[in-house]
């Protein structure tokens, strides 16, 4: 390191982290993701939106003074001194195939149990809920599914980003997020009222109402496009 860099480092508080057992010193205040990049890692897997929404950067870690095994998203979690971590770029959990036209919950009372029978092994240990970075009541939605309550399963699981952390330690080997996605799709198709506005918009798109505007955007220069994006209409929050 050059004397200049050394000086810079003295100003910034550094913390010690261990990535797959190897020790690094990284600036405090970085997220796990940016800290890994600071340390020289380049993400080719397990990195996506960087905004806590895509579920790609699942990370499992322990902190120095706590015995608990914690799980969270790398892009949303700040590094801590003594953090001992590893990333899980993929969860092995096969999604069950189904025909959306054959899963009417009115006709098939226990349809979720049929496609995911392992939900009957749930012991209510709550490991899934503790692992969820979106604060979803995961155990509660599994229990709802076991009871045949598709609506409640869909509602409780709405914020799920499919990071898979719930499923990795489940003692019953449940594939929570796949099962919940099926519940949401069933709920949307069979329970929710149809949206006339959506149907209308789809028609408009098919008729080519937005073709010219799309064409313009696609062919815009990068700078002009960035400017257009920065100046877009944003709805005020609240």
């Amino acid at each position, binding site marked *: 390191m050059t004397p200049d860099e050394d000086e810079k480092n003295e100003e910034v508080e550094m913390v010690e982290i261990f990535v797959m057992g190897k020790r690094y010193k990284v600036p405090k205040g970085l997220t796990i993701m940016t800290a890994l990049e600071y340390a020289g890692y380049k993400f080719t897997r397990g990195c996506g939106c960087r905004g806590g929404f895509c579920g790609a950067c699942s990370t499992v870690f322990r902190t120095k003074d706590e015995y608990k095994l914690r799980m969270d998203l790398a892009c949303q979690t700040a590094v801590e001194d003594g953090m001992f971590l590893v990333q899980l770029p993929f969860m092995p959990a096969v999604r069950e195939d189904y025909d959306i036209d054959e899963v009417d919950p009115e006709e098939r009372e226990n349809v979720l149990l049929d496609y995911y029978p392992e939900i*009957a092994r749930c012991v209510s240990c709550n490991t899934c809920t503790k692992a969820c970075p979106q604060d979803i009541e995961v155990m509660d939605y599994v229990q709802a599914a*076991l009871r045949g309550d598709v609506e409640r399963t869909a509602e409780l699981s709405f914020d799920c980003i499919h990071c898979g952390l719930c499923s990795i330690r489940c003692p019953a080997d449940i594939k929570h997020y796949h099962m919940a996605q099926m519940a949401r799709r069933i709920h949307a198709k069979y329970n929710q009222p149809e949206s006339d506005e959506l149907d209308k918009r789809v028609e408009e798109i098919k008729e080519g109402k937005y073709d010219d505007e799309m064409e313009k955007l696609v062919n815009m220069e990068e700078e002009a496009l960035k400017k257009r994006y920065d100046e877009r209409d944003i709805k005020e929050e609240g």
Partner: protein
Amino acid sequence: MKLKKLRGDIDFMEKVEELSDESLNSCIQCGTCSAGCPFVEDMEILPERVFKHITLGNIDEVLEHNTMWICAACYTCSVRCPRDIDIAKIMEAVRQIVLRADIDMVDVDEVDNIEELPQLAVVGCFRKETG
């Protein structure tokens, strides 16, 4: 491979007594348990035979017969045993030793018509027959 480890590495009787907190040597082989058991017809060997085999160290006899899997934990034997042995707990201990060796007796994906079944049956079956 798993069953081999089961047979070789553990003191089976000790493990059964530990998991059940019951004494197998209290059994006097009176047969009251078998007499009251509603499922005894489908058991390959009788309950009290299972206990005798455990005390004699004949683990194969226990593991190769279906007795503990036909038991439905109805507790009839436990309430009638003249020696006050909680037989249901001993059966449970034998089941647990097998299940904890990562051997499942039922494949959750192979259940026919799971939708027709009451949750009680599915949950109960998986609890008793999967690890």
